[in-house]
C-alpha cells in the first residue's frame, strides 16, 4: 500500500497563509519551498515571501537569527503572499517572538516544544515561558516535541551526529501536510532526487516527514477548517477574533450567568468537542464546575443530577457520544429538567472521520430517542454565532424546563472569524425562579403543575423545605407527578410534551428572509454553511439574478412563519453537508418540493458549487 495517496484530499480553501519560522539553521526556507511545490503540484494559486536574517551569521537562537518563509495558497488568482499569516510554525522562541505579532487572532501556532527551554527563552528575551504563561490563549496551539520525535524517527536510518536533527524541518513540513492535506509524494520524490547519493540522509528525511504527518493523524489534529468569507465592510463596533469552541464555551458561561445559576459541564473528551471542556475547566472563578466523566453516559447522567440540584447543566460531545447519551436524554425529557446537550458534529457514521466537518446529525438530534420524545434544536451558524446560539439554547431550556440540543460542527468549532462583541452589561436577564412554596391542595409540592403559557413545570430543588418530591422515567401523572399507568394520562402527557416544544415557535424570531430583489428562488440552510451560502448568493446577485436566502437557527420547532415563507417561492434549494436531512423535515412538514444539494465528502461546500446550483435552478 502506498503511504499517503489514501489520505490526500483536494482541500477546498478560499485562502490560507502559512509562515514557517525558525533559526537560520532550521531549514525553514527548504520546508517552505517544498510545501509550496506540493501545493503547486496540486493546482493551487500561490505566492511566497521568504525572509532571511539580515546578519549573515547571527547567533543561533536569537531574534536576528530567525529565518522565515511565508506562502499564501488560494483557490483564486492571488498577487501577494498575503498579510496576516493564518498559521505560524515556530521552531524556537525567537521565531515565535519575532513573528507572533503578525499572526491573525485565533490563528494556529505549531510549536517545537523542546526548543522552549530556559537558554533559548532567554536568548529570545522571554522572561516567562509563553507556552505556559497564558500569552498564547488567543491561538490554537499544536505542540510537538519535534527534536526527540525526529531523533526517534531517524533512529534506524543510519544517520548520526549532527545529521540527526537536520531533518526536523521535515517533521514540521509533514505536520503541515497533514493539516492542509498536501500529498507527501512530491516531497518524497524531491528528497530521493536530492539525497540520491546519501541514502541514509534521504531515509532520515522521509522518515521524519512521515512522522510529522502521522503525528497529526494520530493525535487527531484539526486545522482551522472554517471558510470565512469576510463581508465587504464590518459594521462599527468592538471586535475580537474567535473560534467556535471558545465562543460556545463563553456563551454557556454567559447564558448560565443570565439565569443566575452556576454552570455544570459534564463531558468525556472527544474530537472535536474536547476544547469546550478544556476552556470551561479554566474558568472555575466563574463558579463553573467541569466534570470529566468515565464515559458519555456518565457525563449526561451527572449533568441530569446537577440539573436536579438546580445547576444550569450542560453536557457536550460529538456524534458517537451523542449516540451513547440517547437513553439518558430521554430521561431528561421525561423529567422535564433543563439541560443543554452540545453536539459538535463530525464526519460519520461510526468513528468515521473525526477531524472532518459534516452536518449529518440533524435527524439524529430530531429523532434519536425511543418513544415520542420531542426536543428543541438550536444550531450555530458560525464561530461567533456559537456564542449567541448557546445563550439562546439556555434561554429556551430554562424557560421551558426542557433539554435542548445545541448543534455545532467541526467547521464552526475549529474555525474562527471576527466577532463584534456585545456591549458591556448587555447580558439578557433569564433569571430562574425556583419554586419556594407548595402548590398542592394538601400543602404538598406537585412537580407537574404547569405554567399555563409555557407549559413548563416548576423547578424545585433539593434543600427547599416542604417541596420534597420524586421524579423519574416512568410515565408521570399530570400535576401530581406520581407514576401513572392511566391511558388518558399517557395521551395527555405525550401531547403536552409535544405542545410544549411546538409552542416555542411563538417565542422565537420569525425567519428573516434576505431577499432584496423579490426573487422566485429561495436557498435555505442551517449551521456552518452560512458563509458559503452567503457568498454564493452574493455572487449570483452580482450577476444580476435575484435569489433569496434563509438561514435557520431553530431546527425544532421551526419558526412560525417558515411554511408561509417556503410556499411563497417557486423553487427551494436546500444545500447541506449530508445526504438530505433538513430537506426531509421541510418536505414532511410543509409538503414543499424542495431540491437538495448534498455533499458528504468531509469537506465544506465550495462557493462555486452552490453558486452553480443556484444558477441552474433559476
Amino acid at each position, binding site marked *: 500500500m502506498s503511504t499517503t495517496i489514501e489520505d490526500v484530499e483536494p482541500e477546498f480553501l478560499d485562502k490560507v497563509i502559512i509562515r514557517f519560522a525558525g533559526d537560520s539553521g532550521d531549514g525553514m526556507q527548504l520546508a517552505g519551498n517544498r510545501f509550496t511545490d506540493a501545493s503547486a503540484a496540486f493546482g493551487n494559486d500561490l505566492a511566497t515571501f521568504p525572509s532571511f536574517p539580515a546578519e549573515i551569521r547571527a547567533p543561533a537562537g536569537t531574534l536576528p537569527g530567525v529565518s522565515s518563509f511565508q506562502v499564501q495558497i488560494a483557490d483564486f488568482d492571488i498577487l501577494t503572499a498575503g498579510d496576516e499569516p493564518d498559521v505560524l510554525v515556530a521552531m524556537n522562541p525567537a521565531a515565535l517572538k519575532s513573528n507572533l505579532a503578525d499572526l491573525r487572532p485565533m490563528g494556529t501556532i505549531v510549536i517545537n516544544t523542546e526548543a522552549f527551554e530556559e537558554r533559548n527563552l532567554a536568548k529570545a528575551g522571554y522572561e516567562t515561558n509563553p507556552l505556559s504563561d497564558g500569552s498564547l490563549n488567543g491561538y490554537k496551539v499544536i505542540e510537538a516535541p519535534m527534536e526527540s520525535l525526529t531523533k526517534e524517527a531517524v533512529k534506524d536510518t543510519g544517520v548520526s551526529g549532527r545529521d540527526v536533527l537536520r531533518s526536523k524541518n521535515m517533521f514540521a513540513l509533514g505536520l503541515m501536510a497533514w493539516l492542509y492535506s498536501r500529498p507527501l509524494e512530491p516531497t518524497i520524490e524531491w528528497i530521493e532526487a536530492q539525497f540520491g547519493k546519501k541514502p541514509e540522509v534521504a531515509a532520515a528525511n522521509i522518515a521524519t516527514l512521515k512522522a510529522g504527518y502521522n503525528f497529526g493523524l494520530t493525535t487527531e489534529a484539526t486545522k482551522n477548517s472554517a471558510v470565512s468569507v469576510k463581508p465587504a465592510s464590518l459594521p462599527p463596533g468592538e471586535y475580537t477574533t474567535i473560534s467556535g469552541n471558545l465562543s460556545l464555551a463563553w456563551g454557556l458561561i454567559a447564558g448560565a450567568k443570565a439565569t443566575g445559576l452556576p454552570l455544570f459541564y459534564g463531558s468525556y473528551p472527544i474530537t472535536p468537542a474536547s476544547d469546550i471542556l478544556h476552556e470551561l475547566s479554566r*474558568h472555575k472563578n466563574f463558579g463553573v464546575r467541569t466534570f470529566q466523566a468515565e464515559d458519555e453516559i456518565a457525563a449526561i447522567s451527572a449533568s441530569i443530577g446537577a440539573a436536579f440540584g438546580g445547576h444550569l447543566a450542560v453536557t457536550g460531545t460529538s456524534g458517537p457520544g451523542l449516540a451513547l447519551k440517547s437513553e439518558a436524554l430521554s430521561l431528561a425529557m421525561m423529567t422535564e429538567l433543563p439541560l443543554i446537550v452540545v453536539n459538535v458534529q463530525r464526519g460519520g457514521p461510526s468513528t468515521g472521520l473525526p477531524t472532518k466537518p459534516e452536518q449529518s446529525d440533524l435527524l439524529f438530534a430530531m429523532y434519536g430517542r425511543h418513544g415520542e420524545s420531542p426536543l428543541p434544536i438550536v444550531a450555530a451558524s458560525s464561530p461567533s454565532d456559537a456564542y449567541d446560539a448557546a445563550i439562546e439554547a439556555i434561554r429556551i431550556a430554562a424557560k421551558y424546563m426542557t433539554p435542548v440540543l445545541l448543534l455545532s460542527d467541526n467547521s464552526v468549532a475549529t474555525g474562527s472569524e471576527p466577532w463584534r462583541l456585545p456591549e458591556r452589561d448587555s447580558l439578557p436577564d433569564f433569571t430562574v425562579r425556583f419554586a419556594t412554596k407548595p402548590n398542592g391542595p394538601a400543602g404538598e409540592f406537585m412537580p407537574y403543575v404547569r405554567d399555563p403559557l409555557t407549559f413548563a413545570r416548576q423547578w424545585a430543588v433539593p434543600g427547599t423545605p416542604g417541596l420534597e418530591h420524586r421524579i423519574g422515567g416512568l410515565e408521570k401523572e399530570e400535576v401530581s407527578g406520581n407514576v401513572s399507568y392511566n391511558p388518558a394520562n399517557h395521551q395527555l402527557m405525550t401531547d403536552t410534551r409535544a405542545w410544549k416544544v411546538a409552542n416555542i415557535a411563538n417565542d422565537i424570531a420569525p425567519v428573516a428572509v434576505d431577499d432584496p430583489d423579490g426573487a422566485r428562488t429561495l436557498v435555505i440552510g442551517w449551521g456552518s454553511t452560512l458563509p458559503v451560502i452567503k457568498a454564493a448568493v452574493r455572487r449570483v446577485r452580482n450577476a444580476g439574478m435575484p435569489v433569496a436566502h434563509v438561514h435557520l437557527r431553530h431546527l425544532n420547532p421551526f419558526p412560525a412563519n417558515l411554511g408561509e415563507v417556503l410556499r411563497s417561492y417557486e423553487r427551494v434549494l436546500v444545500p447541506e453537508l449530508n445526504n438530505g436531512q433538513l430537506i426531509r423535515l421541510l418536505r414532511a412538514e410543509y409538503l414543499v418540493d424542495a431540491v437538495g444539494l448534498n455533499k458528504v465528502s468531509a469537506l465544506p461546500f465550495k462557493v462555486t458549487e452552490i453558486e452553480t446550483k443556484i444558477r441552474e435552478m433559476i
Partner: protein
Amino acid sequence: MTTIEYTRGDFQSDQEVRWCPGCGDYTILASVQKFMAASGIVKENAVFISGIGCAARFPYYMSTYGMHSIHGRAPAVATGLATARPDLSVWVVGGDGDMMSIGGNHLIHALRRNVNIKILMFNNQIYGLTKGQYSPTSEVGKRTKSSPMGSIDYPFNPMSLALGAEATFAARTLDMDTKHTVEILEAAYAHKGSAFVEIYQNCNVFNDKAFIALTGKEDRDSNRIYLEHGKPIRFGQDMEKAVIFHNGEATIVDAASVDETAILVHDQTNMTMAFALSRLSHSPTGPTPLGILRSDDSRPTYDDGVSAQLARAKATKGDGNIDDLIRSLGTWTVK
C-alpha cells in the same frame, strides 16, 4: 442548623409500597427510615437516587427528594448532584443488576473518585423486576429462565470488587438484621466519602432463601461473622471459631486450636486485610463476614476537591466577569 426531631413516619411518603409481601425490601425501607429519623439529616437535604429494578422503586417510598432514574446510572446521576450540591446528603439505592451489571462502571468510578455519596446495593442475587434471570451475583449453576441448563457466569464478590475499585468504605449487612443495618447506615453516613453498603436481601418470589445460611435459625449463629474494628475476629454459637492469616490468606479455624495472639484483629483501615476478609465467602452459603470491611477517612472527597478548586480560583482570579472574558484575547474597533 437546628436539630429537628423526626419520627420514622416523617420519612414515609404517601405512595403505596408495592413490593411483594414478604420482600426483604420492606425491612430495609424500615431500617433506612429509622436511621434517617435519628441521623440528624434535615429532611429536605436528603436525596435518594435510584436506577431501575424492584429495589430501585425505593425513592418513591421516601418522603425526601428523589429520582427514579434509568437502569444502572444512579451512581453517575448522584455524582453530578453531590458535586454540584455538596450541602446535600445523597443516597443511591439499587439492586445487584442495576449496580453490578449495567451500572458496574459508574459504581467503580464513583468509588475510586470518593464522591460523597452513600450507595446501598440490595443484593438478592437475581433480577427481580424482569421476573427472575440470573444476575452478576448469582451462583454458578443457577437455573433461571435465561439459564435453563444452569448459569456459567462466575459471580462477582461485591466486597472484593468495591475494594479493588478503591472504595474507602465497604460494608455488608442483612435485610433482616435491622439493628445491624441501622448501625452500618450510621457508619456510612459518618464516613467522609463514598460508602458502599451491600445488603443481602431476600427475594421471596424469584430467589427465596438465598441467604438461608445467614438467616435460618439453625445456621445463622455459626455463619455470621460480625466484624468490629479493633476486635479479634471470632464467631460461632459460642464464639468458638476464629479468623487467622495463614499462607497470606484469611482462614477460619477453631479458636481453641490457635494462640489467642494469632487471631486476626480487625483493622478497618487496612485495605489488604479487608480484601482478605472479603474472600472468606464468595456466596453466602457458609461463614460470611458482616459489618464494615473497610473504612478509611484519610482520602479527600471528590466534591471537597471540586469546591476547593473553585474557591482557590476565585481567590486568585476574583469573581469571573463575562464582559472581560470575551475581551480577553484582545479587541479592535471598527469606527
